């Protein structure tokens, strides 16, 4: 099947190096300490952060840093076929773990000992790249909650089909069986925190594909920064400063 036409257009009309349209909104859940909705094309994810608060399970309390917990769940209606079990299946558990490790690396946990930070991510619509959308939404929610971060973690995925590196795969391209590289990146510190790939790639092509994903992450980071700045200015304006 042709994923990249001879003119260089993908199935949804994008160029190979073009990301899908991103949209983000802060403060969707009023009750949470921080929350955000993040959309990458048709993938829509909502993240809510509760914390820092007292540890619920005393046995897990850590005396020198905060406990970070994460739960990833997909809504019943998020995929094309209705899902039976929204949470607790293997894929959800694995993605919860991945998000937790990524966010834990960038939260300054030593500033909040003996406390707990809960990150809940809910997928409303899945169209490829859910992992990346979740990490981006979690970063926005953490920044909204005022939890000290080393840097904004952003994430983007890229792949290699029809001998072309492609940025930001959607569901159809993802299920094509080609390689799928997901990168989590700290833009200001210029460091990679998450790197996952499936299928196989020769090393020199892998470098190109990873570099492309990193460029995607930088673009997402600029957008997230703008949203945060805009939000802060709005709030200060409403307070009359």
């Amino acid at each position, binding site marked *: 099947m042709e994923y990249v036409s001879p003119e260089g257009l993908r199935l949804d009309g994008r160029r190979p190096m073009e990301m899908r349209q991103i949209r983000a909104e802060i403060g969707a859940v009023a009750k949470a300490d921080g929350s955000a909705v993040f959309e990458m094309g048709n993938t829509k994810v909502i993240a809510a952060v509760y914390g820092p608060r007292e540890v619920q399970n005393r046995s897990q309390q850590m005396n020198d840093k905060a406990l970070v917990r994460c739960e990833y769940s997909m809504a019943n209606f998020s995929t094309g076929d209705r899902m039976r079990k929204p949470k607790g299946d293997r894929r959800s558990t694995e993605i919860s773990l991945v998000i937790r490790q990524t966010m834990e690396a960038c939260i300054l946990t030593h500033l909040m000992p003996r406390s707990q930070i809960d990150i809940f991510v809910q997928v409303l619509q899945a169209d490829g790249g859910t992992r990346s959308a979740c990490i981006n939404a979690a970063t926005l929610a953490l920044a909204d909650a005022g939890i000290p971060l*080393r840097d904004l973690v952003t994430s983007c995925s890229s792949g290699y089909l029809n001998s072309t590196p492609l940025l930001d795969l959607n569901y159809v391209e993802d299920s094509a069986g080609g390689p799928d590289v997901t990168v989590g990146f700290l833009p200001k510190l210029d460091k990679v925190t998450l790197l996952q790939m499936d299928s196989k790639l020769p090393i020199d092509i892998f470098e190109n594909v990873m570099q492309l994903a990193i460029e995607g992450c930088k673009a997402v980071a600029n957008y997230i920064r703008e949203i945060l700045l805009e939000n802060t200015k709005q709030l200060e304006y409403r*307070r009359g400063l």
Partner: protein
Amino acid sequence: MEEAGREKEVVTPGEVLGKASDVRAGRGAYVAPHNNLVYASLTGFRRIVSPPPDSPDQDQRPTVEVTHHKAHGVIPEPGSVVLARVTKVMAKMASADIMCVGPKSVREKFTGIIRQQDVRATEIDKVDMHLSFRAGDIVRALVLSLGDARAYYLSTAQNELGVVSAESTSGATMVPISWTEMQCPLTAQIEHRKVAKVGG
């Protein structure tokens, strides 16, 4: 027009605020050990605070802080005066739920304990816990320390600390008559508490 150096610049986490040799990292900022740069860790307005005049001469660096728009819930710190409701009274200590720190109420309750030796300043080994507190009393206490994993350590060993409000067995709010006694207005019954000195 800006005396304390307040600037209206908004920063996001990860942005460089300066070199560690030039500025000190305050709230909302941190120093990266490998390259000695100060980065922001919160989203908000950046403020530079000049160093206090009494700091040592070599350390006259201004402090840079980032203030977030959301105020976090208060957390009890050692030395702060808190209002707590007594939940359990035992032979050697009383446990209480901390509800307010200073004038602000907390987002979720913290547990504190008042040990027998911290109830008052004099004759600390002759204290009878049941004549000092009852379950349900509201006490004003001072946080001594973060305590152990289970609870903060509180102290009422000052005149202004102790029971502020209590209900008698008949259900009415009692009136304090001395520093060890409170009287019920309905039944005129006197009950023993470690009473706080309120007002002048």
